[in-house]
């Protein structure tokens, strides 16, 4: 993308006013997506994202600048802007870059750009029409097939010069079912850090459509969820969004370094129920949220965040790590060159426990089974979170009963992870996009079936 020699000259300019660290992040990405609605291919989006971001640090100060002009002159201008913003001073470190290859633990068999559009459309149609034709109650469907070829280069004043190529593919289907004049939606959207081979053995496009349609139909027939405080069982896979929001964000250095986390100063102490072990693992081969190196060039890691309820580590990037006195954990991520990197999650999940799924449901006299979760959000400082339940069922006397719609879960992260008192054995991962200050990035959430002994359920 940019030669080692050019990077050296640009980094020298960046540190010229006394920075103790400088970094170039350059990107060239091709995003391709096909959308279908009303039974037709409606839109194809095809875009090239290209530019570079330069950061310099001096002690606990950070300056970032970005540009779309990746010529040497453009990069030097950008570096000068960053250097000037840092203030007055002179260069005190030397720049000598060594190319480093980290290897790729995410083999790609079929690079999406080498597959004809017609073939991609055929796959999308499999998923689309599986939903459309599932039942006459399905009144509308939309579907998207997305592939991303994200090439990054990181060079820094510590001598690193490394590149990575991240290819991701995702299919999603949104179905609308209508019953008695009311509409409800169903959604399923699995993705992998893979090429088009994802559809050979990992993801069955038709099954994606069927799952979206089934959810829409179930919810269209459902009554409203009753409101109140009750025990809730949360399904495996995307249900793990509860840990991501209620706890994960509060373990990111971007909150912790500033004292804005419910879990500040809690390393080594019990913050969760002893049944809870939670892991952030960027190294799972071909998983949606996996990386070889993070966006500061640190290799991805597998980190046990919480072990049997005890807080073991935070997720740390280089800049926030300075304030905390901690090294990077390979957690630096950004959507693109124009965002400023910060600590984020990769594939984050609650590990398998020892309770059987049957026992979990049987333990609930009156409660909610949140089979499929929607998105959520959190205030990391206080831990207050909220989630939507996309597919929920009432549980009475240990049995799953009628479906209910319109439920949401609210509470405080530090309470809810203490209240996870049963953890099942069917760990699965779910695909998501996580939005925060450094943009929207692919992340995986996951868990087996869990029970939260009590939580506020919003409904009516």
């Amino acid at each position, binding site marked *: 993308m940019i030669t080692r020699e050019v990077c050296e000259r640009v980094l020298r300019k960046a540190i010229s006013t006394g920075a103790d660290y400088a970094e170039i992040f350059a990107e060239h990405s091709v995003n391709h997506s096909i959308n279908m609605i009303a039974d*037709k291919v409606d839109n194809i989006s095809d875009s090239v994202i290209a530019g570079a971001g330069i950061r310099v640090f001096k002690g606990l100060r950070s300056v970032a600048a*970005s540009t779309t002009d990746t010529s040497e002159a453009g990069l030097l201008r950008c570096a000068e802007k960053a250097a000037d913003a840092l203030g007055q001073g002179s260069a005190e470190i030397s720049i000598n870059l060594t190319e480093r290859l980290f290897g790729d633990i995410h083999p790609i068999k079929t690079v999406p750009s080498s597959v004809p559009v017609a073939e991609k459309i055929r796959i999308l149609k499999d998923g689309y029409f599986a939903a459309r034709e599932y039942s006459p109650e399905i009144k509308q469907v939309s579907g998207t097939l997305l592939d991303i070829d994200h090439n990054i280069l990181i060079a820094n004043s510590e001598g690193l010069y490394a590149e990575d190529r991240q290819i991701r593919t995702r299919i999603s289907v949104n179905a609308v079912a209508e019953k008695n004049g009311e509409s409800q939606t169903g959604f399923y959207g699995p993705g992998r850090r893979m090429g088009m081979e994802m559809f050979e053995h990992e993801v069955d496009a038709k099954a994606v459509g069927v799952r979206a349609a089934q959810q829409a139909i179930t919810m269209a027939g459902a009554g409203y969820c009753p409101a109140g405080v009750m025990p809730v069982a949360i399904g495996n896979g995307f249900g793990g969004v509860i840990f991501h929001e209620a706890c994960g964000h509060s373990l990111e250095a971007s909150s912790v370094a500033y004292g804005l986390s419910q879990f500040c100063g809690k390393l080594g102490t019990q913050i969760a129920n002893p049944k809870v072990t939670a892991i952030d693992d960027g190294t799972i081969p071909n998983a949606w949220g996996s990386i070889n190196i993070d966006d500061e060039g640190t290799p991805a890691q597998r980190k046990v965040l919480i072990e049997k309820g005890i807080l073991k580590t935070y997720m740390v990037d280089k800049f926030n790590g300075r304030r905390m006195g901690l090294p990077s954990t390979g957690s630096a991520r950004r959507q693109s060159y124009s965002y400023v990197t910060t600590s984020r999650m990769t594939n984050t999940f609650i590990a398998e426990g020892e309770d059987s799924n049957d026992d979990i449901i049987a333990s609930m006299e009156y409660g909610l089974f949140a089979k499929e979760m929607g998105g959520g959000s959190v205030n990391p400082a206080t831990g207050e979170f909220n989630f939507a339940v996309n597919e929920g069922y009432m549980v009475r006397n240990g049995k799953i009963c009628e479906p209910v719609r319109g439920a949401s879960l609210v509470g405080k992260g530090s309470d809810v992870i203490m209240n996870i008192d049963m953890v099942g054995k069917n760990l699965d991962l779910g695909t998501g996009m996580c939005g925060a200050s450094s943009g929207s990035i692919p992340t995986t959430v996951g868990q087996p079936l869990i029970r939260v002994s009590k939580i506020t*359920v919003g409904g*009516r």
Partner: protein
Amino acid sequence: MDFNEFKKCVINAAQSLGLKEYELYYSASESTDIGTFKHEINEFSSAEDGGVCFRCIVGGKMGYASTEELSAAEAESIVKRAAENAKALENDDTQFLVEGGQEYRKAEDKGYPLPDTPELIATALKGDKALYDADPLVIDGSQCGTGVSSFKVAIANSKGLDLSYESSTAYFMAAAVVSDGKEMSDEFKVVHGPFDKLDIDGAVKEAVEKAKAMLDYDSAPTGNYPVVFSPEAMTSMLGVFSGIFNSENAQKGLSRLLGREGEKIAADFVSIIDDPFYPENGINLSFDDEGSPTCTKAVVENGVLKTLLYNLKTANKAGVKTTGNASKAGYSASVGIRPFTFYIAPGNISEEELLKKAENGVYITSLGGLHAGANSVSGDFSLQSSGFMIENGVKTKAVKSFTVSGNFYELLKNISALSDTVKLPRPYGKTAFGSPSVLVEGLSVAGK
């Protein structure tokens, strides 16, 4: 190369491919943001981004391709890619490009002079000091941010259209963290506008007061109550559900309002206006993202649905004229539909009278998780809320960690009063939402 040079390359490439109908859309933005932590500037960022989107009609279909790399090779590539993409499309909508030479209402030029870096730094530090001085409960973690941004948009097409627009603004943000030793609470306030007119002390004071008010809180008791939504809370709701007035959603079965113009869909005294020239919005736009002239219109008037929002494609399908609401969510996006300044028109009672009218209920000042807890297709919402109890017509105890649930279509009909002042909490952007305080009868609250 710069945009004008790139434009020439694109036109050459389009002509040599024999394309007759095409458009080039360009947008670019520049922004500088700085933030404080513990009385120092700890972050400074300066971002430039932007790109171009080429679209063309081939065989009746509109193909798109876009890039951020302005080079001769990319100019040729996006033209080819867009023409190829058009061939794979199947929708049978009639596609349009806007003719050049139309009349446009002149939008007031609100370009502000931008401050330099030392001025920004001084403002951030001044805000930071004011924040710590505002109250002894303010703790480390409180931060201030300030910045400036400017953007430009240009649209040119094969039918002689050649329009451009530039705008700039500044903001100041105070994020207050307060603690009484037991509980921690944080709230923020952002103000936008010309840099020299930013009300820094006002923003600081509001953030601190809001955070302090939430230190000693309870959860709301579960039940059905009259609910008052503050302008901030109602505009978040309106932001999510404005999509029901989007004609494309309606035509695709994703809104219940298709063909319901002339029907009553809201309480008698409710009007909802879309105004591209709203004085308080820092951006006034005389053309939309297709290049059609924009206009002010009532979408709902006295409870009756008057019109949906249209672009050229959906207006043609419905047999009406475009309302000039074509919009792209970023330069690379396809043309969709968005409102400009979209607001609920004010009523005629003060906020105090509104609370009196509610008598006993909940006053919601903030809603969370809208991207997840509100379904724009069904209209159902179940949202994390915070605010105050209303007892005997006055605001009392702070409440949070509860949800309010209902359905937006029903909510419109169950509005029983509107206060007399419209606020635009985020008054800058191609799309902004506004509302007075709104009293809604009988919503479900889930708390303790």
